[in-house]
């Protein structure tokens, strides 16, 4: 079974080739069938891999499948291969599972689009690249997937490329990602310089011996990889591309810019956890950036009026949570939140897509309202998604978010906990603001409301499946504090991922930050219950405030926001980050370009170099060309004289 692993990425690749090469001639039904079917098959195979891995003893659950020798130069040799372990298979399950649902949804959402074949081809290519990313057994192969998903992201953001704004958004995403990729490359170079290899297993085996814990090398490797992760996962300060990425079709936003690709950064940090544990300072930076991003993005999410942009900022905020989790060395918690977030954020985006579909491509929340009666399935599933992300038990978001917050507290980072705690309240508030504005109250655009209609089953079915997953998804990671009283319910995810992180436990114990011991203490248990209750309270508070301001008494909202107008303005301008980049990066760059063009190119190169060099060559050529008499006899004479000279040289030498 495990030897079939290469088929998992290859199936979507095959789908991409079929649709990409022959898509123009295929019917819409076959395009969708190829696109969704290939990912569905890959999902089934991944489940098979999961089962096969589960059948192995816990300590043998790390299997490398060699594919071929990729590069071989001197002593350097790099094999391309797949690494199957609980972590990579978990990621592959999310990618293919959620991906499959979104492919199915796309068949309905993009039904009318003339570029359907292109859409599915890109989507399949993306799935292929993402699977390469998560299944790779070395940094270079991971980087191939990393760049592949970046390319697909660019292609899909600018999918409707005839609109300049879409093409610009695609370019912005690509360029901002390049900044992170550059750091990622540097990180890889540094790993190679320090450890002499780039394949995961030897790197992680050698790292504790070769790298001094807390030393400069480990710090820079970890930091550079993290900068790469901030680019891909839209963390401060490289977050600016993700909101603009919402110009792409909504299924793309759901799959790439919420559920899978943007979590690649989290995956990389978790995959490299051995290196991060050797660099506590870098780990702290990860946690701080994560927490800062969480609250920063959540606050911006409060005032967005575009339904997809609210979700985009929410995604950035939730990614911040994941980084906060891994930053306090709670890698399982980070992956846990990654998984649950994939469920409910995909659900929310697809729900938003359903709304947009119903409203004929209207995305402005201020023109919606009262859609609950028209879109019963969408509104119900969206409500479930909102509850899940807000952190209401027993839905998925509660368990994963709370585990992160608790890990932050238990790891001694109370300040970070507080930031995450407040962000959780903001999350609950903006999500329910979105739900109320879209589905409740009175229709603000009667015309659009009148024409609104529920989406076809091909779109609502994935919504329902994802809604179910958003409810039950959290039950795979019930914390011990709750699991024990409920009758020894085990923390399945932690158990499953344990072999991956067991070496990490050793390192962590060495660093004196043993979380397991701390959690075992009785006093801490009470604390955990208390913090849990506090999380639920603040979520309810956020929901209550949203209910009050957006459902019960919109008049009060007007009065309240009038006093906060300056703050509101700052939030609406997204803290002026885009403007700062424009002033600090774009303007100097344009000035430099203008200088290079007007002075260096026009005056120096065209005016001086070209004229002088060109003139010299022309003048010289005019002289030399006289040798070419055009008379064959002259040429023959030259040949003969040359032959005689050479003959003389050889004979008389």
């Amino acid at each position: 079974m495990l030897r079939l692993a290469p088929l998992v990425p290859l199936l979507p690749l095959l789908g991409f080739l079929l649709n990409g090469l022959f898509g123009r001639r295929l019917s819409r039904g076959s395009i969708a069938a190829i696109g969704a079917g290939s990912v569905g098959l890959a999902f089934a195979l991944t489940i098979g891999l999961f089962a096969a891995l589960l059948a192995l003893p816990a300590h043998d659950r790390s299997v490398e499948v060699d594919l071929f020798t990729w590069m071989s130069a001197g002593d350097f040799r790099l094999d391309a291969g797949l690494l199957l372990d609980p972590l990579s298979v978990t990621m592959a399950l999310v990618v293919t599972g959620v991906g499959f649902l979104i492919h199915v949804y796309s068949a309905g959402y993009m039904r009318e689009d003339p570029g359907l074949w292109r859409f599915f081809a890109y989507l399949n290519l993306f799935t292929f690249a993402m699977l390469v990313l998560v299944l790779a057994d070395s940094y270079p192969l991971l980087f191939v997937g990393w760049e592949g998903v970046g390319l697909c992201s660019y292609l899909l953001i600018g999918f409707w490329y005839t609109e300049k704004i879409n093409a610009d958004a695609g370019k912005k995403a690509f360029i901002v990602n390049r900044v992170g990729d550059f750091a990622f490359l540097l990180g890889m170079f540094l790993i190679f310089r320090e450890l002499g290899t780039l394949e995961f297993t030897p790197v992680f085996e050698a790292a504790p011996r070769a790298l001094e814990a807390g030393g400069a090398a480990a710090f820079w490797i970890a930091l550079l990889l993290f900068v790469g992760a901030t680019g891909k996962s839209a963390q401060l300060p490289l977050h600016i591309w993700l909101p603009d990425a919402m110009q792409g079709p909504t299924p793309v936003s759901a799959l790439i810019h919420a559920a899978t690709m943007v979590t690649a950064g989290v995956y990389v940090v978790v995959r490299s956890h051995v290196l991060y544990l050797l660099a506590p300072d870098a780990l702290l930076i990860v946690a701080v950036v994560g927490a800062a991003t969480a609250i920063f993005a959540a606050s911006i999410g409060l005032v967005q009026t575009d339904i997809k942009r609210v979700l985009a900022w929410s995604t950035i905020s939730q990614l911040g949570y994941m980084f906060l989790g891994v930053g306090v060395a709670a890698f399982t918690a980070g992956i846990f939140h990654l998984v649950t977030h994939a469920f409910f954020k995909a659900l929310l985006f697809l729900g938003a897509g359903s709304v947009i579909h119903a409203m004929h491509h209207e995305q402005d929340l201020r023109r919606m309202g009262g859609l609950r009666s028209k879109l019963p399935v969408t509104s119900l599933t969206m409500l479930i998604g909102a509850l899940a992300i807000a952190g209401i038990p027993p839905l998925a978001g509660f368990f994963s978010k709370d585990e992160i917050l608790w890990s932050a507290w238990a790891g001694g980072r109370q300040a970070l906990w507080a930031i995450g705690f407040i962000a959780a309240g903001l999350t609950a508030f903006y999500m329910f603001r979105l739900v109320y504005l879209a589905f409740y109250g009175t229709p603000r655009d009667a015309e659009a409301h009148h024409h609104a209609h529920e989406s076809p089953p091909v779109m609502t079915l994935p919504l329902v499946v994802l809604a179910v997953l958003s409810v039950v998804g959290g039950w795979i990671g019930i914390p011990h504090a709750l699991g024990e009283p409920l009758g020894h319910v085990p923390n399945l995810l932690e158990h499953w991922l344990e072999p991956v992180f067991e070496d990490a436990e050793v390192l962590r114990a060495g660093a004196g930050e043993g979380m397991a011991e701390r959690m075992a203490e009785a006093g801490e248990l009470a604390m955990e219950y208390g913090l849990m209750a506090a999380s639920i309270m603040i979520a309810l508070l956020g929901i209550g405030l949203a209910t009050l301001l957006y459902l019960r008494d919109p008049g009060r909202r007007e009065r309240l926001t009038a006093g906060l107008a300056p703050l509101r303005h700052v939030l609406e301008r997204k803290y002026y980050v885009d403007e700062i980049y424009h002033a600090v990066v774009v303007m100097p760059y344009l000035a430099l370009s203008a200088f290079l063009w007007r002075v260096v190119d026009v005056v120096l190169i065209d005016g001086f170099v070209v004229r002088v060099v060109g003139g010299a060559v022309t003048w010289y050529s005019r002289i030399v060309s006289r040798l070419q008499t055009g008379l064959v006899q002259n040429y023959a004479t030259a040949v003969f004289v040359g032959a005689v000279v050479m003959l003389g040289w050889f004979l008389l030498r």
Partner: protein
Amino acid sequence: MVPLSHYLALSAVLFTIGVLGVLTRRNAILVFLSIEIMLNAVNLSLVALTRATGNLDGQVTVFFVITVAAAEAAVGLAIVVAMFRRRETVDIGRFDVLRG
């Protein structure tokens, strides 16, 4: 008995006469005749060497050279005819389209 070197020296002299003809004459026909002299000079040395070494390959090569000379003459003269038809002259000094 004539030594081999005399034959070879004669061959060298004849060859050089041919070369000088090719290099200096501007009449295409005479250039061709000079080439025939060169071919024959080489033939002479081949036959002489055959006699000296006792290996018949040299004579067979001369046989082939004569054949090639026939082919060359046919094609070359056709070219001369074509040249003449185009320019009304066989003066190769007048054919200088390659001039720089």
